[in-house]
C-alpha cells in the first residue's frame, strides 16, 4: 500500500520517485532492461541517460496534452509519444556515437516498452501539470538508474574484473577467478534479486513509520 497522499511539491515528488516508490525495487517496473544492459557499466550509463531523457520528455508531453487527449485513446497517444522520443535517441546514437549504438543493439528501441514510461504516464502525467510531471519522469529515471548502476558495477567487477573497462586491483588479478555467470543473463537475475533484497531491507523502516 502506498503511504497517505503527500502534498505535491517538487521535493516530495522527487523523493517519492527516487526512493519511497522506486521503480525498480518498489514498483518492480522496467526490469527487462535491467536484466539486458547491465553487464558493462558504460552501456548502462548510456542506457540510463537515454531513459531519463525519454521519461522526462514523455511525461512533459503527455501532461501538456492531457486536457485535449480523449480518454479512450490515451494509451495509444502515450505509446506514440514514447516511441517518438525513443526513436530520436536511437537516431542520434546511430549518427553520432555508432560504437555505442552497436553495443546497445536493439535495447534502445526497447525503451518504448519500458514499463516505467507507461507507468509514470498513466499514474502521474495524465492527471498532473506539465512541469511537475517532467520532474516526476526524470526522478523516476534517476531512481531506475541508481539501482541499475549498482547491479552493473557488481556484474562488471565480479564477472570481468574491470570497472568502465579499467582493470580493478585484485579482481583482475590471478587470485580472482572471474565469475562467468555474472556476465551471462542469469547473473542479472541473481544480482537484481540481491539488489531488491538489500534496498528493501534498508527501506522497510521508513515504510512502517509512514503507514
Amino acid at each position, binding site marked *: 500500500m502506498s503511504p497517505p497522499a503527500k502534498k505535491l511539491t517538487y521535493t516530495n515528488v522527487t523523493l517519492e520517485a527516487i526512493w519511497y516508490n522506486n521503480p525498480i525495487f518498489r514498483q518492480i517496473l522496467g526490469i527487462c532492461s535491467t536484466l539486458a544492459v547491465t553487464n558493462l557499466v558504460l552501456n548502462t550509463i548510456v542506457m540510463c541517460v537515454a531513459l531519463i531523457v525519454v521519461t522526462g520528455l514523455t511525461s512533459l508531453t503527455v501532461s501538456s496534452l492531457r486536457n485535449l487527449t*480523449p480518454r479512450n485513446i490515451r494509451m495509444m*497517444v502515450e505509446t*506514440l509519444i514514447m516511441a*517518438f522520443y525513443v526513436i530520436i535517441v536511437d*537516431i*542520434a546514437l*546511430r*549518427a553520432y556515437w555508432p560504437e555505442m549504438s552497436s553495443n546497445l543493439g536493439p535495447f534502445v528501441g526497447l525503451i518504448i516498452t519500458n514499463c516505467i514510461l507507461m507507468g509514470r504516464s498513466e499514474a502521474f502525467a495524465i492527471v498532473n501539470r506539465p512541469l511537475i510531471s517532467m520532474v516526476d519522469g526524470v526522478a523516476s529515471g534517476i531512481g531506475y538508474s541508481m539501482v541499475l548502476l549498482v547491479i552493473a558495477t557488481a556484474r562488471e567487477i565480479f564477472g*570481468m574484473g574491470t570497472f568502465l573497462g579499467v582493470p580493478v586491483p585484485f579482481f583482475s588479478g590471478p587470485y580472482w577467478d572471474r565469475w*562467468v555467470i555474472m556476465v551471462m543473463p542469469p547473473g542479472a537475475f541473481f544480482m537484481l534479486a540481491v539488489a531488491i533484497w538489500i534496498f528493501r531491507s534498508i527501506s522497510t523502516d521508513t515504510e512502517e513509520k509512514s503507514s
Partner: protein
Amino acid sequence: MKDHAWFPIAYMFLITAIPTALLIGLAHYTQPRVDANAQIAFEKAVIMATLPATDPTLRGLALHKLFVERINTQTNAAAGAYRLMDGDAVKAYAIPFAGKGFWDAIKGVIAVAPDRTTVVGFYVYEQSETPGLGAEISQPWFRAQFQNKTLAAGDLPITFRRRGEPLGPHDVETVTGGTQTSVRLERLVNQACDQWRAAMPSGATP
C-alpha cells in the same frame, strides 16, 4: 468539439502524422552520417588488419585519408581482397569475412602477406557477442595472436584451440566461455581464406 465521434480519430491521426513527419526528416538528415559511419568502421578494419601497428584510436577523417592513400579497392583483381600498397608493390591482402555469430552477425577482415601464407593481422569490426565472453574476439589480445601465424594447406587454414592446448604455427587460442562464437568465427575465417586462395590467380602477385 471533444464530444464529436470523429474527434478521437482526427486527434490520433494528427498526433501520429506530426511526429512521424519529424522523424522522417531527422532520419533523412542523418542518413549520410550513418552510412559514413558504417563505411569508416569497415575501412578501420582493413587498416588495422593490414597495418596492425596503427594507433587503435585513429578514427574519422584521418583514418579515411590513410585508407585512401594506402589501400587499393579494386577487389576484382585480387579475388575479392583489398590490397595494401606501397607504391606499386602489394604489401598485404585484406580478406573480408562475414556471417552469423552466436547472437548476431560477425564481420571482420583477415590480412595475409604477399606470400599468401603469413597472416599479417586480424580485426573484427561488427559483432554482438556476449560481453566478457564471445565479445573478446574484438579485444587486442585476441587479434594479436593472428600476427605471423601461417595458413595451413588444406581446408583448415587456421585452427582455434582451447586454452592450455599447445599452439602450432597455424593455431590460435579461442575465447574462454564463448564456444559457439569460436566455432562460428573459425568457420567464417577459414571459409573466407579457402575461397580467396582458390579464386586467387596463381603466379605473379597482381
